[in-house]
């Protein structure tokens, strides 16, 4: 990866988002990210001499469209361009649809889908101006296979995959690629609620015999954002150890 690569990622303060940010920073990229509040990672990256000039973080509510627009413009002003966008921020709403509160449904749609659409729109403009760019939507195996208890979350992730395919056709002629990364179960806060038995059951049903780890997903994200994937667009890369194959 060449040093001037500029990555913009939503929700980069922890979890998978943090891991992708750390990976790109370690490879010399500049990283712009936002989250609702700072974490030890964002504070460290902002203060350490090795990363502070290449790391731009702001406290931001992803559902505030105007604030996202300002963030994108500020990131471009600071780093000069945006080469990669990762729509990572999401809330893993769970529960039976019949019992879901309307505000839960609205909130999940606003964060998982609308915020991603608006951030993509803003970054697309920068990429159209540049005539290049790569967009990665963090989807889920829940967008591909049905699972009881996550219908709202699944709907938002399937919508992101629809965005991936249509936008890939729309902006491909201008040198912009759009792909989805669909993680299966991986060691994160999102599976924190599962018991050891449930995790073991998932591992047994997975051909590769384990849950994914963050490094598995970071490697796939890095590939899809890189020039190695220069002829890949409109695709969903499933990283689930074969669970859904």
């Amino acid at each position, binding site marked *: 990866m060449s040093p001037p690569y500029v990555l913009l990622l939503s929700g980069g303060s922890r979890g998978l988002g943090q891991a992708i940010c750390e990976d790109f920073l370690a490879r010399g990229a500049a990283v712009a990210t936002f989250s609702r509040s700072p974490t030890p990672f964002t504070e460290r990256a902002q203060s350490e001499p090795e990363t502070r000039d290449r790391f731009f973080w702001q406290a931001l509510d992803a559902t505030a469209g105007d604030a996202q627009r300002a963030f994108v*413009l500020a990131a*471009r002003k600071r780093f000069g361009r945006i080469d990669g966008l990762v729509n990572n921020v999401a809330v893993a709403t769970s529960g039976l649809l019949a019992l879901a509160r309307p505000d839960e449904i609205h909130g999940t749609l606003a964060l998982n889908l609308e915020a991603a659409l608006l951030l993509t729109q803003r970054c*697309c*403009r*920068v990429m*159209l*101006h540049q*005539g290049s760019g790569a967009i990665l939507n963090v989807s889920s195996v829940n967008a591909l296979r049905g699972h009881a208890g996550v219908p709202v979350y699944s709907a938002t992730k399937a919508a992101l995959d629809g965005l991936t395919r249509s936008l890939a056709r*729309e*902006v491909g*002629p*201008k040198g912009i690629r759009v792909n989805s990364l669909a993680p299966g179960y991986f060691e994160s806060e999102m599976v924190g609620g599962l018991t050891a038995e449930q995790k073991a059951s998932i591992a047994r049903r997975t051909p590769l015999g384990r849950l994914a780890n963050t490094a598995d997903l970071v490697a796939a994200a890095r590939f899809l954002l890189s020039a190695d994937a220069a002829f890949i667009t409109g695709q969903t890369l499933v990283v689930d150890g074969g669970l859904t194959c």
Partner: protein
Amino acid sequence: MSNAQTPDLEETIRAAVLAIARRSNPTIAEVQSAQRLTGELGLKSLDLAQLVASLEMELAIDPFAELVAITSVRTVADLYDAYRRCLAGEAPAPSAGVAAGASRAEARRQAALRRLARPRPEAPPAGASSALRGGPRS
């Protein structure tokens, strides 16, 4: 906006249009005010999006974020006028294309009103099922 800024704005817009038009047709040497963006200059809708994006990066404004769509702007002069008005804080003026579209919309509205004003078939007797009503259905 001062007069001194106007020629710069016009030149900025012409340069942006030329840069994008030349990507699909390198033989284009210059851009004239009266030229149609999607006609003589051959810009597609995605080119127009790229044009608006490029001008937003340069001028930090987007006159088409609200009210008027870029696809309704016909000529280079219309485009310049939209940015000039936006910078001056004026309401966007509809281009000829927008005006024509507005006229068609108004004509459709008037036609709909005329249809609504026509005398309706006699109302069925009370209690008749709506499925048994004769005459055209709206």
